[in-house]
């Protein structure tokens, strides 16, 4: 019974595909999987928008939207109707073809990233040998679409926003990749399915998730920082900061195209949270061996939504980073820490099993982190401001 609940969607797909002739079954299975992805993740996107607005509101001592439906849960429908019925303005001088293709390309590329995430046991759309590489390839392609959006608007400020966004995304791509490479190194495979299966083991009831190891925890923190920067989320949202650059690279977009950009950004957030869950939080595996009766896809989506909640929480807390501050942070702090983490992970493997490796690896990471932090903060005063007035 529980097996059935766990494999519910696989059984459903097999049942539907059973109605078709044998030659068409494989393709039909894939199409059904695609339909599932296209239905579920935009639904999660709608929930995320409500969660974000209500959550941010409560954190800022106010209520979020509460007039559309009970507790504002029908707000995404209102937003959808608004974006669909708004006039689609294309500036006269804008490059119409590229202006149209940019949001389309973004959404296509982001959806492709979902194809390799293992949503549950046996529930991955495409099981490739190098699926992590595919995911990062798709992530890198989003930068092209952002550049296309900023350039085609023929607007200095859009172009500036696009340049800043692309520079930020490129800067944080390297820590993102390196922190994932630590996981690949310890698992020995680029396949996301194998990475989750490697974490699906339990010792004394506790799981072997990579976040529970010193190098995994450090890698997770750096992955989280890089992921926040990759999706242009606060505190790294200068390219789209509403108070800074109007709307950055999508200033000139209105109506449905703006909705597509919005969709692309939030789907990117869900997608990268999904990858983080797969790499560090054990994907679809349960937190305790005793809880294995809960279907695996429920665990996956709970962990993804938890990551989203943390992202929203961070957005409500931190002020925006300036462009040079965030790039300094990427190249001068996060990147060296990821390289150190790679070496610590190798040390972890060489020290063999036992408690010694826990102590040594944690000690190295913590000491270097604190020392680097102190060194970086030297010379900066963070007390109350002192003023000098003219006499």
């Amino acid at each position, binding site marked *: 019974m529980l097996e059935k609940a766990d494999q519910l969607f696989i059984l459903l797909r097999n049942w539907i595909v059973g109605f078709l002739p044998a030659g068409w079954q494989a393709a039909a299975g894939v199409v059904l999987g695609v339909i599932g992805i296209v239905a579920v993740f935009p639904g999660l996107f709608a929930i995320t928008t409500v969660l974000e607005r209500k*959550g941010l509101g*409560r*954190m*800022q*001592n*106010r*209520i979020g939207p*509460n007039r559309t439906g009970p507790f504002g849960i029908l707000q995404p429908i209102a937003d959808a109707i608004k974006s669909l019925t708004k006039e689609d303005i294309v500036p006269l001088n804008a490059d119409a073809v590229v202006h149209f293709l940019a949001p389309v390309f973004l959404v296509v590329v982001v959806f492709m990233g979902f194809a390799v995430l293992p949503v549950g046991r046996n529930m991955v759309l495409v099981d490739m040998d190098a699926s992590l590489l595919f995911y990062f390839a798709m992530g890198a392609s989003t930068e092209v679409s952002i550049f296309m959006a900023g350039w085609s608007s023929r607007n200095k400020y859009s172009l500036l926003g696009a340049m800043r966004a692309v520079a930020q995304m490129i800067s944080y791509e390297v820590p993102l990749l390196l922190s994932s490479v630590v996981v690949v190194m310890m698992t020995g495979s680029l396949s996301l399915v194998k990475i989750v299966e490697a974490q699906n083991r339990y010792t004394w009831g506790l799981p072997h998730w990579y976040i529970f190891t010193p190098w995994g925890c450090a890698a997770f923190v750096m992955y989280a920082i890089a992921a926040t920067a990759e999706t242009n989320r606060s505190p790294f949202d200068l390219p789209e900061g509403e108070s800074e650059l109007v709307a950055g690279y999508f200033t000139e977009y209105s109506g449905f195209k703006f909705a597509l950009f919005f969709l692309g950004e939030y789907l990117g957030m869900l997608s990268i949270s999904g990858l983080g869950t797969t790499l560090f939080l054990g994907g679809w595996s349960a937190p305790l061996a005793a809880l294995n009766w809960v279907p695996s896809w429920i665990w996956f989506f709970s962990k993804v939504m938890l990551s989203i909640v943390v992202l929203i*929480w*961070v957005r*409500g*807390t*931190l002020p925006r980073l300036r462009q040079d501050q965030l790039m300094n942070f990427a190249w001068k702090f996060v990147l060296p820490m990821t390289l150190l983490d790679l070496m610590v992970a190798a040390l972890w493997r060489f020290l063999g099993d036992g408690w010694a490796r826990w102590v040594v690896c944690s000690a190295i990471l913590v000491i270097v*982190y*604190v020392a*680097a*932090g*102190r060194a*970086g*903060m030297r010379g900066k005063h*963070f007390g109350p401001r002192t003023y000098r007035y003219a006499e």
Partner: protein
Amino acid sequence: MLGEGILKGLAETAKNFAGSFVSAERLTTVEYPEQRIPTAENARVFPFLIYDGTDWEAGMRCVACQICEKECPPKCIYIEKSKDKKPDFVGKMQIYPAKFDIDVSVCMSCQICVEVCPFEAIKMDTEFELSTTDRFGGLLFDRKHLAKSNEYYHEIHPTEATEVDARLAEEKAKAEAKAKAATQAAAAKAGAPASGPAPGAAAPTAKAAEALPASKPAGGGE
């Protein structure tokens, strides 16, 4: 340690989030129009005319002296005097305004009309939900619209209203005393012409003389 501030900030926002469900201090939103913050006593929006008693025409304090019309900076008051007279609160016959229009879209709520009115006839209202779809006529308030009772004034500005009432009662008492003194003097003059004119006349005349200078400053102060 690097990142300490971030963690403290995250704790603070978490407190905000959790606290907003339980304490009013962490959720300061007032969901207008279902909930309203009570207006302060000194709030002022647009002027209104006070009337005493129940009949708004008979009890209206305004005597159409047109001081507020002249003093109003954006000139939003328009007054037309009446041809006849009606008795005011002390019994004296006064003219009253046949037309008293305030253009509320022009009025800037400066309260100068209230400050200069010698008869405590015009005061500031606190009603602000005056939206209308008629841009020109809907915001031109006439005499009838502006007339509100003294009880209403007590409701919206209690301390001011009691103060004004006390002042008006004092003036009324003074005027009555003056009138009584005048009638007593006339009666004394008419009733006792032969017997004891000096002491009898001295006392009322002294009283009248006392009363006259007393009422003169009062009349000059008004």
